[in-house]
């Protein structure tokens, strides 16, 4: 099944094409303030590289975030409107899973980390690989690295755009020679989104094209403010 994968949730944006378990083309491009300008021409480029046109695409995959709050809306909107327009299915994939999947050949626990855009805050999760399938083994984490480090109780592979520095900080926080923290530098890639989406679509799983929306692990600042003031009885 030919699937186009898109992820614009991060500070690099990505599109890729896969046919079942085979990667046909993959492109990572730098995001400016947002990822809107080049998204369609980059989709066109990867399709051309794979000798395909949009009509050949049988399904769409999209990274749902968490990540950049403007960028993520571009990828999700493009994926769902292309799917609606083409009458093809769409499948959303959490971006932390996309990162973990890119490092699935490593043994043991995998911890993808995405910078949350505000000081000291990261999004993270823990995954394990079995027979090439990555599964999340705990709830998503939103918080600082200190808090995350407390959850690391065994040797772990950290996957992130700045994995080395996260690795060092987590290693320092744990302070135990028995727990080995390895770094794998990585960004969410379109081809990984396409592979994950293809596997699900081939199993007959898909998301509703019109209602698909990003995965928000943090509520908006305004909602958080409203929640706090209501709790204090000020609104």
């Amino acid at each position, binding site marked *: 099944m030919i699937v186009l994968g898109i992820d614009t949730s991060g500070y690099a944006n990505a599109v890729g094409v896969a046919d079942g378990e085979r990667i046909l083309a993959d492109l990572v491009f730098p995001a400016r303030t947002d990822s*809107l300008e080049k998204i*369609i021409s980059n989709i066109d480029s990867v399709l051309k590289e794979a000798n395909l046109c*949009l009509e050949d695409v049988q399904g769409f995959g999209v990274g749902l975030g968490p990540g950049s709050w403007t960028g993520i809306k571009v990828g999700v909107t493009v994926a769902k*409107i292309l799917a609606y327009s083409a009458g093809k299915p769409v499948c959303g994939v959490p971006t932390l899973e996309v990162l973990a999947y890119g490092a699935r050949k490593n043994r043991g626990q995998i911890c993808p980390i995405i910078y949350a855009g505000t000081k000291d805050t990261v999004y993270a999760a823990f995954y394990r690989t079995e027979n090439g399938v990555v599964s999340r083994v705990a709830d998503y984490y939103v918080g600082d690295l200190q808090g995350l480090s407390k959850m690391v109780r065994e040797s772990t592979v950290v996957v992130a755009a700045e994995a080395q520095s996260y690795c060092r900080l987590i290693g320092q926080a744990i302070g135990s020679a028995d727990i080995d923290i390895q770094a794998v530098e990585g960004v969410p890639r379109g081809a990984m989104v396409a592979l994950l989406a293809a596997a699900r679509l081939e199993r007959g799983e898909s998301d509703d094209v019109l209602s698909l929306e990003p995965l928000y692990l943090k509520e*908006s600042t*305004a*909602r958080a403010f*409203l929640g706090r003031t209501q709790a204090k009885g000020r609104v």
Partner: protein
Amino acid sequence: MLVLGIETSCDETSAALVVDGREVLSNIIATQLDLLNKFGGVVPEVAARRHTELIGYVIKEAIDSAGKTLSDVEAIAVTSKTGLIGCLLVGVAAAKSLSYSLQVPLIGLHHIEGHIFANLLSNPQIPMPHVCLTVSGGHTMLVYIRDYCQYELLGRTLDDAAGEAFDKIAKFLELGFPGGPAIDKLSTRGNRKAFKFPRPLLRADTLDFSFSGLKTSVINTFKDRVAGNEALPLEDIAASFQEAIVEVLVTKTMRAALARGVSAISVTGGVSANRRLREVFQDTCRREGIGVFFPELSLCTDNAAMIAAAGYARLRKGEKSDLNLDVLPNAPLEV
């Protein structure tokens, strides 16, 4: 030519199908009034999230309710200039995807040009040239319209938009959101001359506007009365405040029309639905022998039919955007 219009520049998610820039087949508008009431105004981050949720439904409804299919669409028009960046980019991302998928032309438009075309949609007989006043929650702009798609900016607000002043005063007086209709309604029971609020820049030799001082004056008057334990006639405050805004808007627009020697004025945007504004414009224009035109009420606030109509006019002139179209949140109206 069947044009699909898309508008997401602020808090309305809208899609419309319009034939030849004239005949509106559908004009679907999803408002965020539930959110606006909760937050007391537009929160960009919250509005942008809601656009992402709604955009697919709104486009599908615009197509289905017109009895058309996507393959009937011959061009896509979208608001890409002026608005909230996170909101604009949802509409533009959707528009680019459709243009690429359906292989039809794409045109990105200025939001104010859309409002200008809202009035031309309702009143195709408006003569050229004419003077257009766009008044909404985000804009207050006087434009000389030489011909279709040829504009000269005459004046704009230096601080708050007129609709923003309505919203802020309504919020202060706890009348709800949006503030315009609430103040309009309350004012019908009030005395317009009860309070002497300032008419900012009324006599100044400029066609620019300023409403923040007026807003402060209303708030100070209210606070003084509270401090002095005086009566608080909300109807009179609302009516006097509204009268100050209306007088400034009408006086400056008439001055521009007379200076330019045009035979017509068009008034667009959300505030053009205000009953007192319409009444004073009609009386004044009748005295001066100038025609005045307002869009039908459904086209006053943000909507995609006006974008489709403006897009058709630009496409007819041979213009189009490429697939690298990006958003320009602060772009001036092209002249």
